[in-house]
């Protein structure tokens, strides 16, 4: 499967870009040329276009945009991964329980899931953040807490079909506990679609984080995040294009690369799409 995936151009390109972003994020303190929060208000430094000294130019407080972008990558990628981890943890467990036990348990869980899906997630997120107050931790938790129903349904569907398989019946006949059957026997076989969905979710979590930071509900200033760099940039969009173009492109490329990988994997894993 891995081999097959690596033959897929989409997956390779997407993975390479993701790998690159991770390197940037991890190496941020080394590759950043300036302190991302160091301000310099002298007119020769602030709002300067890209130059050798400032690769991506400077912002309205004279901060080096390149360094801010590099540090901002950490926020975006962390949010993406942590939010998706929370989503998976909740979604997989609840979906597994619903699908495995079926009956009343399944009905109750699925009605709850449907109720949550009724609300557009961005409004749900905005509402919760208005109560909790904006912070990066809250953003990750809230994105995780509002995005699990999708995975939950996916896992449930897999479990519904897998629990009837012979090997599951055999395990049950041998007296294996529910926990063992769920986690050792069924789950490993149900993971492929979850993996695809998780990859795609990372992209959307990054996008949500950017949107929230753009609205001032995400990462608080002066910590750089692509979303809040974009927010500041909009004040200067006509005169300092680099402040909006660069974070915009970064968000675009990152989300795109997760989607490439996700779609590529889906194509590889889905027998109906086999070439």
């Amino acid at each position, binding site marked *: 499967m891995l081999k097959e995936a690596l033959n897929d151009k989409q997956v390779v390109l997407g993975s390479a870009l993701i790998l690159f972003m991770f390197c940037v994020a991890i190496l941020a303190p080394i590759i950043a040329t300036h302190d991302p*929060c*160091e*301000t310099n*208000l*002298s007119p020769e430094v*602030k709002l300067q276009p890209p130059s050798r000294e400032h690769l991506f130019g400077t912002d*309205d*407080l*004279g901060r080096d945009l390149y360094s801010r972008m590099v540090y901002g990558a950490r926020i975006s990628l962390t949010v993406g991964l942590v939010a998706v981890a929370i989503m998976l943890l909740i979604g997989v467990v609840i979906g597994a329980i619903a699908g495995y036990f079926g009956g009343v348990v399944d009905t109750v869980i699925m009605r709850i899931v449907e109720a949550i899906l009724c609300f557009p997630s961005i409004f749900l997120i905005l509402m919760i953040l*208005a109560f909790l*107050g*904006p912070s990066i931790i809250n953003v990750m938790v809230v994105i995780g807490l509002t995005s699990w129903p999708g995975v939950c349904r996916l896992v449930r569907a897999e479990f519904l079909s897998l629990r009837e398989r012979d090997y599951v019946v055999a395990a049950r006949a041998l007296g294996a506990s529910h926990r063992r059957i769920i986690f050792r026997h069924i789950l490993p076989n149900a993971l492929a679609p979850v993996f695809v969905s998780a990859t795609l979710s990372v992209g959307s979590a990054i996008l949500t984080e950017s949107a929230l930071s753009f609205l*001032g509900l995400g990462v*608080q*200033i*002066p910590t750089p995040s692509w979303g809040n760099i974009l927010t500041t940039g*909009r*004040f*200067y*969009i*006509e*005169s300092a294009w680099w402040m909006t173009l660069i974070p915009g492109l970064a968000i675009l490329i990152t989300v795109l690369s997760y989607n490439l990988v996700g779609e590529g994997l889906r194509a590889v894993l889905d027998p109906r799409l086999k070439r």
Partner: protein
Amino acid sequence: MRYRHFKKRNKRRTKSSLKTPQLIGVASFFILSLTFFGTSLLAQNDRPVGDAYVSGGIGDARVLIPFLADDSASGSICGLVFNGLTKTDKDLNVVGDLAKKWQVSKGGKVITFELHKGVMWHDGEPLTAEDVKFTYDALMDPKNNCPYTASYSDIEEIEVLGSHKIRFVYKEPYAPALLKLGMGIIPRHILEGENLRKSAFKRKPVGSGPYIFEKWKTDEYIILKSNPDYFEHRPYVDRYVARVIPDQAVQYLELITGGIDTMGLTPYQYRYRTDTARFKEKFDRYNYLSHGYTYIGYNLADPLFADRRVREALSYAVDKKEIIEGVLFGLGEVCTGPFLKGSPYYSVDAAGYDYDPEKAKELLKEAGWSDTDGDGVIDKDGNPFKFKLITNQGNKVREDVATLVQRQWSQLGIEVEIQIIAWASFIDQFVDKKNFQALILGWSLPTDPDCYNVWHSEASKKGGLNFISYKNREVDGLIEEGRREFDTKKRAKTYKRIHEIIAGEAPYTFLFFPYATPAVSKRFHGIEPAPAGIGHNFIDWYVTPDERRYTW
């Protein structure tokens, strides 16, 4: 007779205009419905009546009862819907509004007002001295929790001497009395027996002013229409629309695309974006020192800020000049205290806390703060010096100030977390409840220097504006003294002293007086910039028929 006649016509007009859709879409631009009403009306001195003035502001109004309004958005709407006994003119002198004339006697303790006759409430009832008495009684009613009661606590008695004559008797002479009696008068016949804080009136006011309240859609817009029976004269601009656009960049886009007619430009917009022939072709820009200042306030109830030396250190570490040059693009002046710069009450000798990080470090050391555990954050008795600095969303200057001071304080080893909060919850949940450590906010300054509401220890009680809990006996005494003194020179001395004491204690880091930099569409004529700004003669502004954008 004349009024009754007008009243009938007015009623008919209101009725039919209710049938027409008022506002169709507010997604990205405003479309106003096209029905014809009063478009060819000519008022006195032949200025045409018509069109609408659409303003853009960051926050929505909160309560449209003049003495309960404590934010600028509510205040500016109340100013158009209500009248006080007095008002200030373009040179900030106190002149009569509802009062035709007045007489001060017994050394300033008794003021007798005679009201204009024939002034009507927007519902057609006559405005009388009973309404005036009702307003000030309601204002003083502790149930209503009015933030301005301190300015009226010396009133001993309010006597109605006739339908249009009223007498205020003060326990002690009160210098700012005439100015303070400019508070908007509310109608007794509607509000008697109502709980004002809960009444529907606060969102649907009936006043006597030049504009009649028409519609309020929360967080979107408030529409006022011109009062054809206004006792001075009918305002020439037919509608006043206050739109809520919680972001200055969006406001600017709306301005240049014609969605709004005016906004306060940001310093950057003023200096670099609008200094072009193209912009000036469509808009007039104004520039004057605003009657207000921006500050960082420390919650003195928080033990972290109890030591004066700590607050002084925080003030010394803030480079105000850098902020003015860098963030305000030079459009501001350094502020050292709570009075208007250039006024006789502003002391030039008050402590200015010129940027001096070394001195700040010394002061912190003296106060017992040092980095004992080597983590880069100073501490005392095992507690690190960490606090949260909050400000409201939508004000780029305040956000930039937060970023800069966080940086400057971090060099002293102080860890500051910034939180930007939407206006309504910023005021309700944090400021009013004193639920903050430090905040960045601004005060607009009235013409009279009486600062009881903000600096007297009594004002630190619930509902007061002294939310940082500043308490100083000497300042309390001086504030009370200043209110009794009518001699301008002596008052100046008192307030200068107050300025010096407050500055010396650094409960705020006073930052700057920003310049007000409004831009107004060129189709509005009759604007007269004056010490009071540009809004003082709004009812005289007009649009020529050719230039009209909106019709009713």
